[in-house]
């Protein structure tokens, strides 16, 4: 009906509504401005620097040979053991309430009543959280490399590059997952709490129970997939193998080691599935 007859208001007024891609960029930009102005970003930077500082102090105090005898060993000790925690913390704090906060704090009412698709809001906010997390991540990586270069010279092992790439993919998956939970709830504190419990305790406990007691490879747990970040830094890539005493009660069992293809599949699978589910949830969620 009049849809065909009516010229868009924008063209009548001399301005044209931006494309959805451009609107994603706008949402991302202001999401980042909001992060930079909030304490959260600086708290996470401080946490990153605090972990780096503790590790730097430990290595300086006890000597690098106490922890690693090679550059690869150094990066395995430093990066391999800590980066998943740094990523989880970033995911929890940047993603945990990214969507739920829009409902609870009513900031969504300011944004959603504008002519832009919800998918643009979701992706824009996700990219904002990803960019903010990457900055914390990059500062942590810079300190790691700085120490590595100081102790073992400029020759950074290529495995660290692989680990860096896997870490970025893991960060994407963690943010996809936390955004999904953030879309599930309307309360910021609940969504942050649930994601924190999952990443800091539950996943690890379930992984241990499943792999040690049930003797099942925990391929369905994201943190198991993230094992490739540390595994790739090992002198010899660990493999799944039967080991006496690894099973319940010291019986024969299997220690599981995720392979790179498996790890990438788990990480990317989590990212794709949770991103789609989170987006669908946000699109269906009502501002009641």
């Amino acid at each position, binding site marked *: 009906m009049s849809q065909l*007859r*009516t010229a868009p208001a924008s063209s009548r007024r001399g301005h044209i509504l931006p494309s959805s891609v451009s609107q994603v960029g706008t949402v991302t930009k202001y999401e980042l401005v909001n992060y930079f102005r909030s304490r959260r970003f600086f708290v996470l930077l401080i946490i990153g620097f605090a972990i780096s500082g503790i590790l730097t102090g430990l290595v300086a105090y006890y000597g690098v040979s106490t922890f690693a005898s090679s550059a690869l060993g150094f990066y395995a000790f430093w990066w391999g053991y800590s980066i998943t925690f740094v990523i989880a913390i970033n995911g929890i704090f940047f993603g945990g309430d990214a969507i739920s906060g829009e409902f609870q704090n009513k900031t969504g009412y300011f944004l959603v009543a*504008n002519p*832009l698709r919800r998918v643009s809001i979701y992706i824009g906010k996700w990219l904002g959280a990803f960019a903010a997390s990457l900055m914390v991540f990059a500062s942590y990586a810079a300190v790691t490399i700085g120490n590595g270069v100081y102790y073992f010279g400029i020759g950074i092992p290529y495995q660290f590059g692989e680990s860096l790439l896997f870490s970025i993919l893991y960060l994407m998956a963690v943010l996809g997952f936390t955004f999904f939970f953030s879309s599930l709830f309307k309360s910021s504190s609940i969504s942050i709490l649930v994601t924190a419990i999952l990443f800091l305790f539950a996943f690890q406990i379930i992984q241990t129970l499943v792999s040690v007691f049930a003797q099942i490879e925990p391929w369905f747990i994201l943190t198991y997939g993230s094992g490739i970040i540390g595994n790739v830094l090992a002198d010899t890539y660990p493999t799944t193998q039967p080991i006496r005493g690894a099973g319940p009660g010291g019986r024969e069992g299997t220690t599981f080691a995720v392979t790179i293809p498996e790890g990438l599949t788990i990480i990317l699978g989590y990212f794709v599935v949770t991103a789609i589910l989170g987006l669908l949830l946000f699109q269906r969620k009502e501002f009641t």
Partner: protein
Amino acid sequence: MNAPSIEAVNLSKRYGSFPALSNLNLKIEGSKCVGFLGPNGAGKTTTLKIFTDMIRASEGRALINGIEVHPNKKKALESAGALIESPEIYPSLTPREALSMVAELRGLPKGERRKTIEDAVAEVKMDEWLDKKVGKFSKGMKQRINIAAALLSDPEVVLLDEPTTGLDPRGMSEVRDIVKSLKKRNRLIFMSSHLLNEVQDICDEVAMIDHGKLLVYDTLSNVTTRFSSDGGNVVEIEFSRDIDDQAVNRNIGTLTNVNSAERIDSRRVRIRFSGGAQIQERLLSDIATMKIGMISFHSPTSALEDTYLNLIKDTL
């Protein structure tokens, strides 16, 4: 150019078994202000939220300028500005930044953004706060920025959900002036409110809703004439000096079409008359020529209230 319009077609919304909105059919077209009245939980905000795609209708369609909102939100809201409930703005942003975001999302040309934002903020009397963080603002100050955001792109259709909520009396008056100025600029304003005097002051038409059902939609004068207990043809006159019963009965009570004239107090008189706006105009002229100190001649604000109370028997 077509007149701006909004239309609800068999619009329904249910929450479980609770019908928040039942089969709402309403078409509003043209440059005017329509007051949307009803008690708490009547379905006013639900309707406005469906029009902005904040919630989905269980059945039916909501259209803005002929474009169905839910499947075409971006296109439908292109020519609409909305203020639903009292949105919060990221507390770390300044009004300039928050409005810049809206300006960018709505595609305001870069060269015009700065002036448009400054003008919008000046219109809501917040220019001194343009570069202060929103987190420090009172509820009323935030609401002023929200109003500026809703009007930033000079939309044809303006949807306002209790826009004066949280504002002080001066702020309320300023918002009323803004809405009146929008009417002069050929905009369609659909505004929910609990404040009957506000609606009576600025709206041309009213739609009343209760328990999710539309009770009436008509011009303000038709609604008050049809549904108020005194037929709506009542005016209150105020005088600059005392007026006695004799003068009321002899001078005013005997005018043609006046059914009754009664003193409310020593300087105020209420008259009931038969006829429409033309008769009311003549009465005003007749009483003015009497030179008995008339300083005000207006419909009592209770006319709409009376209508409201007659139509809406109970509140949730």
